[in-house]
């Protein structure tokens, strides 16, 4: 795993190429593969020693602020965009959500690591995020599914983490000034100025992060949501549909939910040609979530354009933004985005409020969309567009995560609607 992470970070050609071409100031970041696990058994140290760790890491933000902290997981120096997430639970799902590639995730919930990590809660095959920033790292774990501590897990996966940092103060800054670029370092020899310079010369806008996280070859997916975790849901009527899922950084739970709704799924890489997809004659296509800026992946927009109107499609998060662009609309970067599991969304069709899991920094400007496109969901916090539908072209999309994980299951029926869309199409055919 560790080598894979390194692969992604340093050698992945498309990623470095992306940086180089879109942002001349870009700098390839380095990660050192060493880890210093935090001692979990404090009793063993004896009371003569300080029962706490001394600050050994820095977080330097592009606004010039420097935050002293304690490190866990991997050590080294890492640059990324700092975003905050307000979820109270689900740090493991967040760690493995490929949409966070290139970002430091700051958790506003102060206690992280309480339940350790386990086998079931992985959302992808590895951790793609740049690092984890938390207030308090749990010194013990308490959960019957726990197989490993968070500290060991991050160390193995070569992801840096810091704790004992005033996450509330940083969050206030992010809310006020918007997302910031930062550098996380455990390397004492690097000066604050060097790190600051590093943060200021790095940019995430316009970078194709998707090709770094997408699978390299198509594969079949069969796992359903485990019966222990499956929740009461209506609208499954036994039909099976063949769905092609474009992996822009897809979360496994999208696939599990589709499987639970009775889909046979083929996952394809982000650059899989539309013509190939059409040849496979699927009942529907999913455009998945993924990291970064939709404007950085014009090839994906082209793929979407070629597919819509021919087959029912469902866009989630990045997929929603790509659909927006494919329809001729515009996307823009939000001040600090939406990251959390408590966003109220109004479903304008049912007039119900759904509490949703969200994770995006870009949004579709609905005013730029052509006639006939219907805004089906809006975020009640800021009125931004959270869902689209265009019955004429058999497409639907959500800006947020109906598959939850982490987050509430209120929007799960959206998968049922997609099934209906495919069913109708089948009947019409």
């Amino acid at each position, binding site marked *: 795993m560790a080598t894979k992470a390194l692969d992604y970070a340093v050698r992945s050609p498309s990623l470095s190429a992306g940086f180089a071409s879109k942002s001349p100031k870009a700098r390839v970041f380095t990660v050192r593969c060493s880890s210093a696990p935090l001692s979990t058994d*404090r*009793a063993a140290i004896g*009371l*003569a020693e*300080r*029962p706490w760790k001394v600050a050994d890491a820095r977080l330097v933000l592009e606004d010039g602020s420097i935050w002293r902290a304690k490190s866990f997981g991997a050590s080294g120096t890492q640059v990324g965009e700092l975003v905050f997430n*307000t*979820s*109270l*639970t*689900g740090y*493991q799902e967040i760690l493995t959500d490929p949409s966070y590639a290139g970002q430091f995730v700051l958790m*506003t*919930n*102060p*206690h992280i690591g*309480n*339940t350790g990590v386990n086998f*079931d*809660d992985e959302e992808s095959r590895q951790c793609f995020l740049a690092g984890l920033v938390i*207030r308090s790292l749990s010194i*013990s774990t*308490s*959960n*019957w599914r726990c197989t490993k501590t968070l500290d060991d897990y991050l160390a193995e996966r070569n992801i840096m983490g810091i704790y004992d940092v005033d996450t*509330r103060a940083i*969050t206030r800054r992010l809310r006020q000034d918007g997302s910031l670029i930062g550098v996380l370092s455990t390397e004492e020899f690097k000066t604050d100025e060097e790190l600051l310079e590093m943060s200021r010369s790095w940019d995430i806008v316009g970078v194709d992060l998707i090709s770094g996280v997408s699978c390299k070859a198509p594969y079949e997916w069969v796992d359903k949501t485990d019966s222990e*975790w499956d929740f009461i849901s209506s609208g499954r009527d036994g039909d099976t549909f063949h769905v092609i899922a474009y992996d822009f950084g897809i979360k496994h739970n999208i696939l599990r939910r589709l499987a639970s709704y009775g889909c046979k799924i083929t996952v394809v890489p982000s650059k899989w040609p539309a013509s190939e997809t059409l040849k496979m004659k699927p009942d529907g296509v999913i455009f998945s979530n993924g990291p970064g800026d939709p404007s950085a992946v014009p090839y994906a927009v082209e793929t979407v354009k070629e597919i819509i109107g021919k087959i029912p499609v469902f866009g989630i998060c990045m997929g929603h933004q790509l659909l927006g662009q494919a329809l001729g609309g515009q996307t823009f970067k*939000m*001040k*600090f985005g*939406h990251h*959390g599991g*408590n*966003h*109220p969304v109004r479903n*304008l*069709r*049912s*007039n*119900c*409020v759904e*509490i949703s899991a969200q994770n995006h920094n870009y949004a579709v400007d*609905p*005013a730029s*969309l052509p*006639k*006939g496109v*219907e805004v089906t969901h*809006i975020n*009640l*916090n*800021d*009125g*931004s*567009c959270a869902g689209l539908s265009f019955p004429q072209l058999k497409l639907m999309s959500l800006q947020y995560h109906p598959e939850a*994980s982490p*987050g*509430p*299951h209120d929007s799960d029926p959206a998968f049922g609607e997609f099934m209906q869309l495919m069913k109708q199409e089948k009947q019409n055919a």
Partner: protein
Amino acid sequence: MGYCMNHSDNVSSRLISSSSILTPSKSYLSKPKSVGFFFYSKKPKTQSSSSSLNLRSWLPLLPPTVLRNQVNLVRSELGISATNNDSTNGGVFNKQTAGKRTDIKKILILGAGPIVIGQACEFDYSGTQACKALKEEGYEVVLINSNPATIMTDPELADRTYITPMTPELVEQVLEQERPDALLPTMGGQTALNLAVALAERGALEKYGVELIGAKLDAIKKAEDRDLFKQAMKNIGIKTPPSGIGTTLDECIGIANSIGEFPLIIRPAFTLGGTGGGIAYNIEEFESICKSGLAASLTTQVLVEKSLLGWKEYELEVMRDLADNVVIICSIENIDAMGVHTGDSITVAPAQTLTDKEYQRLRDYSIAIIREIGVECGGSNVQFAVNPKDGEVMVIEMNPRVSRSSALASKATGFPIAKMAAKLSVGYSLDQIPNDITKKTPASFEPSIDYVVTKIPRFAFEKFPGSEPILTTQMKSVGESMAVKELDWDWEQLRYSLRVPNPDRIHAIYAAMKRGMKVDDIHELSYIDKWFLTQLKELVDVEQYLLAQSLSHLTKDDFYEVKRREFEANTPYMYSSYDFECESAPTQRKKVLILGGGPNRIGQGIEFDYCCCHTSFALQKAGYETIMMNSNPETVSTDYDTSDRLYFEPLTVEDVLNIIDLERPDGIIVQFGGQTPLKLALPIQHYLDKYKPLCASGTGYVSIWGTSPDSIDAAEDRERFNAILKELEIEQPKGGIAKSEADALAIAADIGYPVVVRPSYVLGGRGMEIVYSDDKLVTYLENAVKVDPERPVLVDKYLSDAIEIDVDALADSHGNVVIGGIMEHIEQAGVHSGDSACMLPTKTVSSSCLETIRSWTTKLAKRLNVCGLMNCQYAITASGEVFLLEANPRASRTVPFVSKAIGQPLAKYASLVMSGKSLHDLCFTKEVIPQHVSVKEAVLPFEKFQGCDVFLGPEMRSTGEVMGIDFVFAIAFAKAQIAAGQKLPLSGTVFLSLNDLTKPQLATIAQAFLGLGFRIVSTSGTAHVLELEGIPVERVLKMHEGRPHAGDMIANGQIQLMVITSSGDTLDQKDGRKLRRMALSYKIPIITTVAWSFG
């Protein structure tokens, strides 16, 4: 308050005008006429046709066109042609948009009645919020509550308030008179819910055309009836612990056998705080708990349930609106595992040891449960047990109402659950109500918090000798907040304390860790989750490390580390100040810091919170910025809109001084929060004298307002106080201060028995006792209170059969004194004034005695330079001599009662007087003697403390109070009794057993009972006296004399009323105790003081 991470970047706000989304109700306001038919009509005529109760769900049936227009409006603003999907999704989403109801005008709110264990001031908090919310919406609000010591019963809050007993009969009278359109029963705890059920079942709601809003009858029954609840859970596939419902003891035993193993939990239906319930570890315990449970249950129904001992316990606070939107406000995790009542558990919000999948599962379950139970709108609380070994989930119970946990959740998240629930009950949907804290976002969100909130209950076992300090499923805590103390333990005790849940368990954990016991071992014994134990261990380690280092060896970083940790722990409270955007930016305004009362405990209850709130309201009106400091989350004073700023901080010298430094207020008010802040007065004064901080408004130095701490001390310090009384020629009972046992005996010999003994500086008369002989005095000094020169003991003459008088007076800084009220106690002197029933105006006191009392009170207030309130207690002997017992220059427990009896807001006046106004300015210059009689009665928690005797004495034991008002004393008294839960029989058999001291009055009492048509039953001694007087009496054996005895008569329901006074004989004492306990479990009224029976 809560710092909720709700984004509000207006990226595309131009797309949607907020008015059309957030407040569509406006457009509906004009529509109600078209739907009049579906609404409840006030005329009974239309009712007669419907055979069922009018509980059919309310459909805000808006013509579909309105809905469509609404959606179109949004869409057209979005610049998108409105492709109407009504045809495609009509079937799936056939929902009606909710909106404010205009068909109801007048709403009746039921309060919670007196404060009892399991139902404390959190319901004053919720009721107050509900009143405010509904009035804000323009409804006429009528309120019923028998508890005068509440903010919600203040005149300004509801349009009309009935301080009347909360019984179906009397509430029905109010319904008849007021004819409200709707009844809101979910704000007054279990009392209100049960009352609503009773009203509905006796047909009163139907008769007067009153609709239940908030929770319908079906939903209440489904949630509260154990059988229906289990069935409902089965319907939606959610597990409940193996259990059965029994209505007789035999049935219960059958269920126990079928479950097959102990321990078993017994939960009576329709009770609050788990009254009558418990955990049984063997068949004997099982039978006794079942009996008391069956007696306690309104429906004679108990649930016998497999104990999930050691499982983790979680609670979720759920809200639902009429449009079927559901949100979870907060998750709460109990540190104490299953088996301890959640009110007694240390709890943490949000839940700490759940992964997302596990939490979401509980969330899904909660939503399914609230829908299945059919709580249409409002808040509910769902409790789950989770097996720590494999994550198996079972639902324990759900409360379809605002609860103690919701008060905690409200304060923790800043989401005002009660207020929202009130608005939802009149038809609003969650997305139509703006969030009060953020103002920008709708209330339909799930708060996310970036801090952790811990609730620690406050116990009162020391007040109930004889009851075992063990925590079970029945709630025993009286208040909430933080208390830390260090205890010495030996290993055996330690193990026991860890294993058996008890109030000191958290201290036992600390002690065990200090001795090096491993976290795993502590977990084995206590079942407390290791995660919490490790957190505690970390604190212990840090402490041990610091103790091991000498101060000079600590580096600056060390200090920073520890202090910062401490600061981190404090941040949530600091940050939870009202003004969360400017996290701690004090203003330059004229301002006042009000110190609250901290956790509720016996002797210091809601009354003080009442005073604090009034002070805040009055001073806000007078142009001051008010700053409240309190640590009790259940109170109105810690509500986000009571004061301008709120500090959720423990009331310690250090914390208060920190806030003084930060805020630098013009004045500090200490006399409204009871003894807790009063004790801080002197240290604060010393600090102010030493550092002389300038106030932030720039108009002088920070000072304590009102009576000076020195005067307070003069009244508390026995020696100084005695000197003052001597100087003023005020009489007090003979007595002295004993610094040794010899001293005490000498004083007693000098003044003669009986004497009252108590430690100096006490709260609620703690440790106070009446003793009749030398050996009793010695026993007392040996067992109850250690006497030494540092902690002297007061020995005073006990005035037998004296009448006790309570006086509340108000004085201004110009030397004017006005008597607020003179109250006559119905019990004789010696019963703590907080436990005693009292009336205003006095009934039996001669005018000359009253004059003495008035003149002494005035003299004393002037001499002590009282500025604000003062409370004095007097005793008047049978011969008409007056003695001053006690004077407290502060707000007393009786202030709310007096205020309501005389119709003058004393606390408000007091705060204005303290800000410099004179009584003339306030036009309060004369004592008010009302025409009607008001009676206050105390409510006692004996039934919660098994094994404890039910006597009243000088130590206060009541947890709350009720009030009855009428023009005739007897009716006012009866009303108060009914309100306090006593069902006084009008005929039947009375059991009389009087001790020798009170036997002289026996004949009179017996005659009176005979006159009322009672039969009299007595044991030998009493019967003998009666027979001598020629009064017909039936003899019954004492319990130690053989059977059938008095206890059997009680058990057989042959006795309806008991009058028992305490007796000197040991055997008789034991008997008496048993009898009183039995009476309690069979709910027979007991009268333990002679004075009462005259009432």
